């Protein structure tokens, strides 16, 4: 019995030490889940890259419900994890309340701006990337009709849609863009059946390229597009490999870089607003073996030219979130 107690005591001591020894960074995934093949998975890839390179470890949690947000944040903060990175706009309100309570902990939030001295807000210029894939979609389309399928109907997704429409119209002013949102609740990120139906509906209305910005719902969109023989555009992570030769390209949002940078900076994390765009490589489009045959020289040239113009400031893509309106439909 005494031996057992010793074992238990030393085991407990070991766990305590492990918790307090160094400030491990922590990563909180949003409701889409760590392996959504998209946004959260990119965050995980970044954290993993950091862990592989430094040999250190990080803590992580996948949320199961809205109610866990504050709980998870406070738990990591109490635990001494620093910095704490979270993915998703939905953390905005919660972080605004929690951050002042832990002034010595650094937080990084992706996709949202939280105004607190110990928070780094990483925002992406998704409209720029969507503009680029919109141009490519319009050039790949033969019918002159392209589709957009969003997840939950929030300003961020409208920002994707708006950039996309601008890109399409820049190539073909007469093109029609059919826009659909999957729903208004977080369930809209995980409903591939609805994604499929929306895709079928858009195809029947003439769309031959669809762009999915819908998390797990996008899996259904890409699947149906591949089944029905039209092209699709992936989002956030490189999704070209999901259906080789059927996914035109993917709008890359380098969430992995944002997470990697935050973890590399560690406790010295620079706070404030950090904008990732085409100019600094935070946003782009995916090229690999899977889509090499789909992208013509002409398309690549046009997209690269636009990217260069956006970088230099010569071309400005309207940001939906700046005034909650889109100049084109």
């Amino acid at each position, binding site marked *: 019995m005494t031996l057992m107690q010793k074992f238990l005591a030393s085991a407990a001591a070991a766990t305590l030490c492990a918790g307090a020894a160094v400030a491990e960074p922590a990563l909180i995934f949003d409701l889409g889940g760590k*392996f959504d093949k998209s946004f959260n998975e990119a965050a995980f890839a970044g954290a993993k890259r950091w862990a592989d390179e430094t040999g250190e470890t990080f803590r992580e949690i996948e949320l199961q419900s809205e109610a866990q947000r504050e709980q998870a944040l406070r738990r990591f903060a109490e635990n001494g994890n620093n910095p704490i990175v979270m993915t998703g706009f939905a953390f905005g309100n919660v972080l605004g309340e929690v951050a002042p309570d832990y002034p010595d902990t650094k937080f990084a939030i992706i996709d949202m701006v939280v105004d607190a001295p110990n928070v780094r807000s990483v925002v992406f210029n998704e409209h720029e990337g969507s503009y680029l894939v919109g141009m490519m979609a319009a050039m790949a389309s033969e019918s002159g009709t392209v589709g957009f399928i969003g997840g939950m109907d929030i300003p961020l997704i409208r920002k994707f849609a708006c950039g996309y429409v601008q890109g399409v119209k820049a190539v073909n002013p007469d093109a029609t863009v059919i826009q659909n949102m999957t729903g208004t609740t977080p369930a809209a990120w995980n409903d591939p059946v609805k994604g499929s*139906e929306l895709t079928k509906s858009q195809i029947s209305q003439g769309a031959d390229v669809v762009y999915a910005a819908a998390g797990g719902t996008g899996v259904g969109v890409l699947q149906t597009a591949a089944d029905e023989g039209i092209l699709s555009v992936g989002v956030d992570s490189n999704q070209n490999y999901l259906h080789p030769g059927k996914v035109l390209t993917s709008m890359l949002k380098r969430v992995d870089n944002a997470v990697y940078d935050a973890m590399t900076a560690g406790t010295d994390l620079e706070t404030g607003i950090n904008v990732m765009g085409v100019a600094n490589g935070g946003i782009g489009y995916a090229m690999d073996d899977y889509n090499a045959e789909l992208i013509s020289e002409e398309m690549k040239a046009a997209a690269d030219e636009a990217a260069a113009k956006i970088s230099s400031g010569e071309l400005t893509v309207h940001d939906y979130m700046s005034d909650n309106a889109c100049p084109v439909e």
Partner: protein
Amino acid sequence: MDLMTILQVLDSTVRLATPLLLACLAGLFSERAGIFDIGLEGKMLAAAFFSAAVASLTGSVWMGLLAGMAASLVLSGIHGLASITFRGNQLISGVAINFLAAGMTVLVAQDWFSQGGRTPSLMGGGRFEGITLPLAETLRDVPVLGPIYYELISGHSILVYVAFLTVPLSWWILFRTRFGLRLRAVGENPAAVDTAGVSVIGLRFAAVAICGVLCGIAGAYLATGLQAGFVKDMTAGRGYIALAALIFAKWRPWYALYSCLLFGLLQAVALRYQNIELGGLVIPVQFMDALPYILTVVILAGFVGKAIPPRAGGEPYVKER
């Protein structure tokens, strides 16, 4: 709106209504026998996962279907054990099943496939393909009827036809066979059935098992018919809409068909048109999504004929006091 558009919306309606219909009939059998079942959602989800997982491991969609039905039956068995044998609260048991399925599917999926609670995409024989009914190609050019036959009736996966044939079958079983009479009686007055020397426990377990099989088909249809694989929480509340449809149908098979088609149509219209303009009045898509629940509340409130559940529903049967 031309004929093709209407047909496409109706086609989408059929696809969306099928899982609702199967789940609704599943609930119908269970509740007619006096066992309330809010675990439809969980059973569908478990069936969706196991059908996709087994289909991807074996490459055979039929093995997948069997596995889905088996998984759903196991959950039905748990529900039966808790609420029939141990006379527990049926609602709590149902909720437990929903939670169990939501957590278990992702956990097992992660352990088997390491793709974050998903199954690999199904290829070829791992999916139910749409079947073209005989003469569909030849009759396609016949005006009006041809396109209706080709677009709307032909081209669905076999489970859709199974679901629609289950409706008359359920009606026949429930209202034209001895088993059906006893099953309904056990939901209204189990003591009378017991007095007649028929096993209440046995009948209720039989009803719960039928419920499991139907939920299994519904889940398999979601994962292997409509989609090519399982994604976590992919039932997205369809089990609850099926329950609403069941109340809307007042626990009758044919009405279940109509109410599921109606709810499917509402979804299909909401998916096709983001906002509908009716004479200057814009109906937002959110309203269409909420309409099934609103209609159910209206029915429950007794505005459009009263919905009376089976009298012994929710009550565990105690033989002697």
